[in-house]
């Protein structure tokens, strides 16, 4: 991450930080919810960027870890365990474990096979969730918000918002350190030229697996927050289209930049929210066909905006070459 990326990160985080006072000022509580959602998906997208952007692992089932985090909270809450200090670590542990198992098998393959096998594993858990009648099957289940021994009131929108904000900022900082560390160098170089990595003595599998597990763990955190936000958990969270959306956020924002996917998540969710309204203004029932506009926007970004939204803010000419500052 270069200096520019750090600046973009700080500015973005500052903007997120001033959302609550503004929503109070203008009495628009809806936006608090909106931006809380954006930040949660941003955490998921950033975690995918670690393996997709930096590690070159095109995981097409990333939403499954959000699902596991969400279900961990939902199921614990179902059994009367509302303590967040138990829920959150367990949610992350469960996602880490599943990430480790799925990763261990998926990373034996590469390329298209890797994409397909990660998708297949995700679908497996999706259908498992549907079959769990005890936990609502495909209707899902409600989940009470976590309790943090009176320290944080999750039903207070602003407190909850800043908890998510803190998680996002922490995840960004930790991954920023990680990407530049020895470990980060290894996974980035493995994306660049894995055969060369083997030749100079790296057993790359174990490093990629560790990265895959870390990404799953962080995405599990996003899932736990997501269950809290919605007070509801359903298999939809891990539907493959949701995995696809997270991937689109990463690509839209700029892969391999960490902060890019945060911008991507913001753009994606804001477009998803407002594009139908705008289209309704232009034509009757236009709102239903918002995807007609969304699709070309995505294609345009992929075709013309290599480097994503992030590249619009970062100076030209440096894109494509990894910054090593």
């Amino acid at each position, binding site marked *: 991450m270069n200096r520019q990326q750090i600046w973009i990160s700080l500015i973005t985080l500052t903007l997120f930080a001033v959302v609550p006072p503004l929503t109070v000022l203008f009495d628009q509580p809806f936006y608090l919810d909106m931006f809380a959602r954006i930040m949660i998906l941003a955490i998921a997208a950033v975690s995918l960027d670690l393996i997709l952007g930096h590690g070159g692992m095109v995981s097409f089932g990333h939403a499954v870890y959000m699902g596991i985090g969400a279900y961990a909270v939902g199921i614990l809450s179902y059994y009367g365990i509302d303590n967040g200090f138990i829920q959150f670590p367990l949610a992350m542990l469960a996602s880490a474990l599943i990430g480790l198992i799925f990763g261990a098998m998926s990373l034996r393959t590469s390329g298209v096979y890797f994409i397909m096998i990660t998708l297949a594993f995700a679908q497996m858990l999706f259908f498992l969730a549907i079959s769990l009648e005890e936990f609502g099957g495909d209707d899902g289940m409600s989940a009470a918000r976590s309790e943090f021994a009176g320290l944080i009131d999750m039903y207070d929108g602003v407190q909850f918002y800043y908890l998510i904000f803190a998680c996002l900022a922490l995840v960004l900082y930790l991954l920023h350190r990680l990407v*530049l560390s*020895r470990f980060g*160098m290894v996974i980035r170089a493995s994306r660049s030229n894995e*055969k060369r990595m083997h030749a*100079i003595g790296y057993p790359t599998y174990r490093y990629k697996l560790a990265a895959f597990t870390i990404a799953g763990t962080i995405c599990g955190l996003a899932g736990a927050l997501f269950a809290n936000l919605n007070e509801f958990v359903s298999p939809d969270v891990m539907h493959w289209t949701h995995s696809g959306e997270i991937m689109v956020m990463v690509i839209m924002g700029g892969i391999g930049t960490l902060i890019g996917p945060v911008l991507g998540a913001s753009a994606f969710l804001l477009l998803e929210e407002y594009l139908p309204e705008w289209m309704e203004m232009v034509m009757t029932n236009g709102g239903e066909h918002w995807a007609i506009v969304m699709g070309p926007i995505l294609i345009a970004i992929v075709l013309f905006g290599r480097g994503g939204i992030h590249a619009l803010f970062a100076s030209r000419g440096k894109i494509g070459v990894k910054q090593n500052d």
Partner: protein
Amino acid sequence: MTEAALRIEGLCKSFGSLVATDDLHLDIAPGEIHAIIGPNGAGKTTLIAQLSGELRSDRGRVSFAGRDITSMSMPARSALGLARSFQVTSIFQDFSALDNVALAVQAQAGHSFHFWRPAQKDPRLQDPAREALARIGLGDRGDVPAANLSHGEQRQLEIAMALATRPSLLLLDEPMAGMGRDESRHMVDLLQGLKGDHTIVLIEHDMDAVFALADRITVLVYGRAIATGAPAQIRADRAVRAAYLGTESSTDIGDA
């Protein structure tokens, strides 16, 4: 007689009906530059791939410094001190030249499960990497992205990366490939300078370079070693002349 640095016994590899390595026996002596030459398709690169662990051998045994490494993975062989360069330049294009070498240094500096401290500010990686770059003649090119280096410089970087893993044995697959005259001469000097510190197995089509550098030469034809000996011996060998040097114009035995 000292123990061979690398001992190849009865090594075989075929791809379908094509025999790439055919019951090859070869001892590489410690400290020597051992060139392996042969016409296109003789199985030279296949041999390097087998020796480095990239390809699994069908039969036979490879021992390195007395240890059987036949079924070892590439990273494990590298850890023992066996390094290779690639015929087609294989570097980390989007990393700086210095980072390419620093990665090679890091590979030998214990495990890389360090998540916190920035690797690019670690003198334990940067200093040896700078040293290796300087030794190879790229001392002032460290900050240049590897993709922006000239072809010759990238070939040098290949060697620098191999050297940075502190190997005792180097497997060099056509280090002069695609180089101009001056660049080749520079590379010959460079390899000459490595002599003594490293045992080198050299595959090369540039016969001037081979005869200038090699202590011994093995001629490979259809995966078989038809002759092994000192350069003068090889020049005089009937079978070799017939199979390979027969044209007399030894320099035009170039790879396409």
